């Protein structure tokens, strides 16, 4: 394992002893690393390891409490992002910093210090996007673009400034594998021109195949620095998490009778940004886990809403154990045994300002007898919250704690626990481990497997392909509101999945 920085090329960016605290959290502690010219440098770490805070300091969004940064030979302490951009730092955000109602050109102009006049800017956008094989129409509005195209806007915005250091925060989380390949080809071209690239991710495979160096963060500190190509994914994961990953027990499940049938489920897009569901068919048997993969924004939320009862559908489209639920709302569906846990923990699956006790009332009122003839049994709700907290190892002071005070992992364990402990016939979950630390993710996955072992049917909607391969018995892809036919997960490769998910987002056009 080699330590220290690569000395053959000049360091474009250096940081020494960076520290940053928030009330109750030490986000970064004594962080030192350097990025060389033409290098793709990975910043690797779990959720909450301090990667985002670190790059926000480089980009001037957050000020460090301690430490020094240099860009080239000059000290780098930007007062705001504009100062950082002027110094030659550009950044592509994880959740895009784009303005939906504005055009591509307007978005790009907002990201530049001194944009050229409108016509000239439009020509340059067309030019640069063509050079890099990322075609873009400058007059289109952002709302009309796919996730991949939106990312192109961010990248072009950066490229037009000829940055010395380009920061990319989890750029592939919204891309299909093919789109990700295209992105790496672009990054390679840039690196070849001498741009230093700081690449943030927790995806081990892409870092191993595309990055020159990796700095690994854990709990806000640098725990290692290495050449990722010389290590296995397991070794990198061990550095990142600090111990060997927990293995999951998939045994002891048997497929039973059919519990859920979805037939020709269609629904127009609920909002202008939403996705329409187009003739979705699926069947689910007791004891089975069905995995549904897909890139964000292809109808995942809409599918969950159509199953949870937040959206109704035509008669006969959703049938649970022979009973037609399609006209019923969430509450009667729960009473029938169809439960769901949406992706967005704070604000959808739970009310942020409410205590965990109150949050049990959101879904468990009927099945757990917490609400009778409209009257709330507060003591019963508290007891149920306590039982979820202890059974799912939710680490908080007590059931009176507000949901927003919980870490992502703890809240997710509570949300999943709240549904699992109601003994559903079918549980539908969307992104069950998104933004959750490894320990909690393993616990959540295990609880879904255990639920299936007890004879419930489980549908896991996720963008994490590894998770779907690990959990599900059958796999289908959701693409622009259409669900593919299921294939057995056994023997399925990432390449094959990529093809099932692909075809979307103008991939053909992008390859020109």
């Amino acid at each position, binding site marked *: 394992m080699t330590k220290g920085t690569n000395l053959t090329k000049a360091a474009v960016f250096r940081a020494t002893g960076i520290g940053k605290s928030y009330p109750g959290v030490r986000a970064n502690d004594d962080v030192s690393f350097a990025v060389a010219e033409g290098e793709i440098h990975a910043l690797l770490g779990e959720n909450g390891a301090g990667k985002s805070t670190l790059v926000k300091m480089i980009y001037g969004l957050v000020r460090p409490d301690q430490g020094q940064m240099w860009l080239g030979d000059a000290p780098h302490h930007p007062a705001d992002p504009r100062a950082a951009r002027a110094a030659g730092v550009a950044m592509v955000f994880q959740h895009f910093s784009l303005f939906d*109602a504005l055009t591509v050109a307007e978005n790009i102009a*907002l990201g530049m210090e001194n944009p050229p006049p409108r016509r000239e800017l439009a020509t340059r956008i067309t030019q640069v996007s063509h050079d890099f094989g990322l075609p873009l129409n400058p007059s289109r509005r952002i709302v009309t673009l796919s996730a991949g195209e939106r990312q192109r806007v961010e990248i072009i915005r950066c490229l037009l400034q000829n940055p010395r250091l380009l920061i990319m925060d989890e750029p592939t989380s919204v891309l299909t594998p093919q789109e990700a390949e295209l992105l790496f080809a672009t990054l390679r071209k840039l690196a070849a021109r001498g741009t230093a690239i700081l690449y943030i991710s927790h995806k081990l495979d892409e870092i191993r195949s595309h990055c020159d160096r990796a700095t690994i963060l854990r709990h806000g500190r640098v725990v290692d620095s290495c050449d990722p190509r010389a290590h296995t994914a397991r070794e990198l994961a061990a550095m990142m998490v600090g111990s060997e990953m927990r293995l999951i027990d998939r045994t002891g499940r048997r497929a039973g009778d059919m519990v859920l049938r979805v037939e020709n489920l269609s629904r127009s897009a609920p909002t*202008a940004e939403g996705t329409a569901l187009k003739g979705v068919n699926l069947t689910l048997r007791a004891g089975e886990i069905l995995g549904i993969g897909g890139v964000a924004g292809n109808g995942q939320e809409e599918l969950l809403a159509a199953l949870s009862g937040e959206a109704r559908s035509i008669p006969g489209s959703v049938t649970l154990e022979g009973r037609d639920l399609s006209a019923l709302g969430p509450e009667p569906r729960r009473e029938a045994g169809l439960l769901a846990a949406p992706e967005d923990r704070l604000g959808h699956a739970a009310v942020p300002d409410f205590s965990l006790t109150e949050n049990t009332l959101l879904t468990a009122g009927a099945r757990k007898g917490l609400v009778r003839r409209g009257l709330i049994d507060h003591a019963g709700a508290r007891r149920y919250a306590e039982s979820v907290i202890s059974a799912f190892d939710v680490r908080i002071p007590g059931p009176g704690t507000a949901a927003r005070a919980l870490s992502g992992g703890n809240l997710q364990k509570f949300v999943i626990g709240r549904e699992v402990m109601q003994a559903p016939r079918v549980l539908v979950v969307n992104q069950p481990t998104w933004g959750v630390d490894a320990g909690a993710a393993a616990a959540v996955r295990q609880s879904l497997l255990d639920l299936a072992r007890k004879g419930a049917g489980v549908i896991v909607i996720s963008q994490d392909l590894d998770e779907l391969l690990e959990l599900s018995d059958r796999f289908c892809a959701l693409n622009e509101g259409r669900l593919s036919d299921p294939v057995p997960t056994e023997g399925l490769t990432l390449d094959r999945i990529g093809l099932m998910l692909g075809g979307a987002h103008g991939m053909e056009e992008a390859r020109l």
Partner: protein
Amino acid sequence: MMIDPLSVFLLLLSAATPILFAALGELVAERAGVLNLGVEGMMITGALAGFAAAHGTGNPFLGFLVAAVAGAAISLLFSALTQLFLANQVASGLALTLFGLGLTAMFGKPFEGVKAPAMPTGPLRINWIVWLGLIMVPLIWWFLNRSRAGLILRGVGENHDAAHALGYDVRLTRVTAVAFGGAMAGVGGAYVSIASVLQWTEGMTAGAGWIALAIVVFSNWTAPGVLAGAWLFGGVTVLQLRLQAAGVQVPVQLLSMAPYLATIIVLVLISARQKFSRRAGGAAPGSLGQNFHALR
């Protein structure tokens, strides 16, 4: 009954002017992402301050200047609440309206029954403030759609998190936009007292600020749309006054409901269009009415 179309149009222009100013100001504030329900309070403040200054100095234009300053000044109370203390925008706007109505009722007593100085008319027998309002329409359109500052303002209103991430000062942008809205509402209010009614009476803006808010929705958040809305409103007002003057067999109280009912009808039509159209994104700024707070 003879109605000369030109004179009717001139009346319409005059009736539309207070609303036009207030709605253009609110348009800019809303494009920056701030929903300020205090328009009525800022208008009435401008109406009194402008009237007092015009009466005191004998110069109506000085009155409009003072009205703009007063409107902008009182809007800072709203900005302090929403931008500094992160208070709910709906409640803060209401507070501004209630406060403005009370404050002017209290300080307006000495000015009751006093006459305003005469307004000199400009080209085409139209007074200068009406001209100013008409000129503001293309100016604000140009500012919003063609200038760099307008682009930043729209960015802040569309997605304040992204604007902040790019290094723009969300709070400063919004305070400035709200102050501009206040100045415009102040001028609009002063038009009522100085140029239209020619005296001061308590609560004289009579809901014009609220109608201006509705017209911003009607305009689909564009400056030409605001002009169309203000003219529509002006037309209904003039028609209603003409019918009253002509002695139509409908009680005066019912006729005078017309502007408010027209506002509701227009609001319903336009909301329905926005609701049922499938145009992506909609027209309302993405961050409208939401407060922004960043940890540094």
